[in-house]
C-alpha cells in the first residue's frame, strides 16, 4: 500500500492496554480535520500514535509521502499542542518558542533571533522574558502554538485546545486560533468533543466511537445526516 503523496493518511491499529483503536482517515492540507467522539473513544490515543508517543501495532501513517509509523517522534516533524500545553516550566516564553530551532543545532542566540518573528506573530513580544507559570491560559496556548510552529512541522496536532481555558475567554481564543490555523500550510488534526470547536476550526470531521470511525465528512454533511446517536447529540449541541 503506497501512501498518496500529499496530506496526512492514517490507516493503523494502536492499542492501549486491551483497548484498540483502528482509525482510517485522510487529512488534506488547508482542510483542518476535527477528530471527535465521546470520552474514552480513543481520540487522544490516535493523536499519540500520530505524534509517535505511542507505537502503532500495524498499519501506516503517511505524511506527504513519508512513512511515519516506524519513525521516533523527533524525526516525524509533527507538531503537537497538548491539552494543558506542557510548556517547559524552566524556560522563558522566548526559549520555549526557540526550543525546536535549538534542537536542530542552532546555538542559543541565533535560535532566539529566529524565534522573534514567531513571538511577534503570536503577539507574545511583551511576554518573551516571562516563565510559563506567569501566563494566562490564552497566553499559554499562544506560546504552545508558536513553539510547535517555530519547529516548522509538516503537520499539526491539537489535543482539546480549549479544554484548559476559562469558559469566558474560549470564544475569543477560538476565533484567534482559527486565524492561526488558516495560516498553517500543512495538514491539521484537532481532537475535541466540542461542536463549537468543530464549527469554528475544522473543515472536515471524523467521528471516533469505541475505537472505530463511525462517520466521516464535512460538518454540514454530519448535520444533515448524523449517523449515530452521538453525532446527533453533537449536532444539537452545536445548534444551541
Amino acid at each position, binding site marked *: 500500500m503506497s501512501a498518496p503523496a500529499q496530506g496526512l493518511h492514517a490507516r493503523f491499529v494502536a492499542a492501549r492496554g486491551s483497548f484498540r483503536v483502528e482509525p482510517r482517515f485522510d487529512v488534506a492540507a488547508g482542510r483542518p480535520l476535527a477528530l471527535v467522539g465521546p470520552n474514552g473513544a480513543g481520540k487522544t490515543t490516535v493523536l499519540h500514535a500520530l505524534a509517535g508517543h505511542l507505537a502503532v501495532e500495524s498499519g501506516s501513517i503517511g505524511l506527504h509521502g513519508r512513512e511515519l509509523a516506524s519513525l521516533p517522534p*523527533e524525526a516525524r516533524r509533527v507538531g503537537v499542542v497538548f491539552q494543558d500545553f506542557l510548556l*517547559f516550566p524552566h524556560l522563558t516564553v522566548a526559549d520555549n518558542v526557540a*526550543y*525546536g530551532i535549538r534542537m536542530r543545532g542552532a546555538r542559543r542566540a541565533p535560535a532566539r533571533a529566529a524565534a522573534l518573528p514567531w513571538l511577534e506573530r503570536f503577539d507574545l513580544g511583551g511576554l518573551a522574558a516571562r516563565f510559563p507559570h506567569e501566563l494566562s491560559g490564552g497566553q499559554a496556548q499562544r506560546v504552545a502554538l508558536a513553539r510547535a510552529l517555530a519547529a516548522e512541522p509538516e503537520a499539526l496536532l491539537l489535543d482539546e485546545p480549549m479544554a484548559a481555558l476559562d469558559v469566558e475567554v474560549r470564544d475569543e481564543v477560538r476565533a484567534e486560533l482559527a486565524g492561526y490555523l488558516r495560516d498553517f500550510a500543512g495538514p491539521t488534526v484537532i481532537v475535541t468533543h466540542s461542536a463549537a470547536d468543530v464549527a469554528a476550526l475544522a473543515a472536515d470531521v471524523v467521528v471516533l466511537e469505541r475505537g472505530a470511525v463511525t462517520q466521516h465528512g464535512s460538518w454540514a454533511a454530519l448535520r444533515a445526516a448524523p449517523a449515530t446517536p452521538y453525532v446527533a447529540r453533537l449536532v444539537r449541541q452545536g445548534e444551541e
Partner: protein
Amino acid sequence: MRRSAGARRRGPAVAVWVIAAVALGLLVLPLLGILLSAPWPQLPALLVAPETVQALGLSVLTGVISTALCLVLGIPLAVVLARSVSWPVVPRRLLRAAVTIPLVLPPVVGGLALLLLLGRNGVLGRYLALLGVTVPFTTGAVVIAQTFVAMPFLVFAVEGALRGADRRVELAAASLGASPWQVFRTVTVPLVAPGIAAGAVLCFARALGEFGATITFAGSYPGVTRTLPIASYLASQTDLDQSIALALVLLVVSVAVLLGLRDRWLPGVRG
C-alpha cells in the same frame, strides 16, 4: 481518676513525652558534649595545624570528586530507577535493592568488598595490576569508597524529584525534534534540578563523613588517604584536643547541610 475523652485527645501520654525526650537527648547531648569539651582557646592553632589542613584539604578534594562522580553516574541511574516502575516485579525489586545496598551495608564490609574486587589479587584488580594500575590505598581508592557509600543519597533524591515532575513535557520536547539524549539534557535534568542539588549536598555530606569503607579499602596514609574522619579517630587515641578540633569541622559541615536543605529532601520525610 477517670480521664475524659477531651483530655485524651489533647496529645500523647506523659510516658511517651518522657521517652521521646530521652531519645532526643541521645541524639543531641553528644553534640553538646563536643561543644562543651572543645578546646576553644587552642582551637585556631589546632585548625591550622599541618595535619588538620592536610586532612581537610584531602577530604574536600575527594568529597568534591566523589560528589561529581555520583552526579555523573547517579542521575542516569535515577532515571532508570524511576522508569523501572513499569518493569516486572523481580528485576524492579532487584534494581532497587542494588541501589539501597550501600545504605544498609556496614561501610567496613563495603570497603572489604571493594578490596576483594579491586585489590592486587582481586577479581578485577589482578587485570588492572597487569596494566600497571593499583587502586587500593590510593587517593583514587578514597574517591571510589566515598562514591560507593554516597551514591544512594543522590539517586533517591533525584528519583523522588523525577516522580514528582510532570514527565509529559519530555514528549513535548521529542515532538519538537529533541533526540532522547537532548530531552535528557535540556528537559529532564533541569526539571529535577532542585532534587539534584539536594542530592548532591547529601552526597557530599556522606562522602565527607566516610570512615569505614575508606580505612578498609584505602588505609590511612597522611596526605594520600587520611581524610578528616580518619584523622579525627587516630587523634582521639593520642591527642584528644586535636581530635575534637577535627570533629568540630565535620560537625559544622553537617549542620550547614541540615540548614541548607529543605525538610522534604531529608531522608524519611520525603513525600
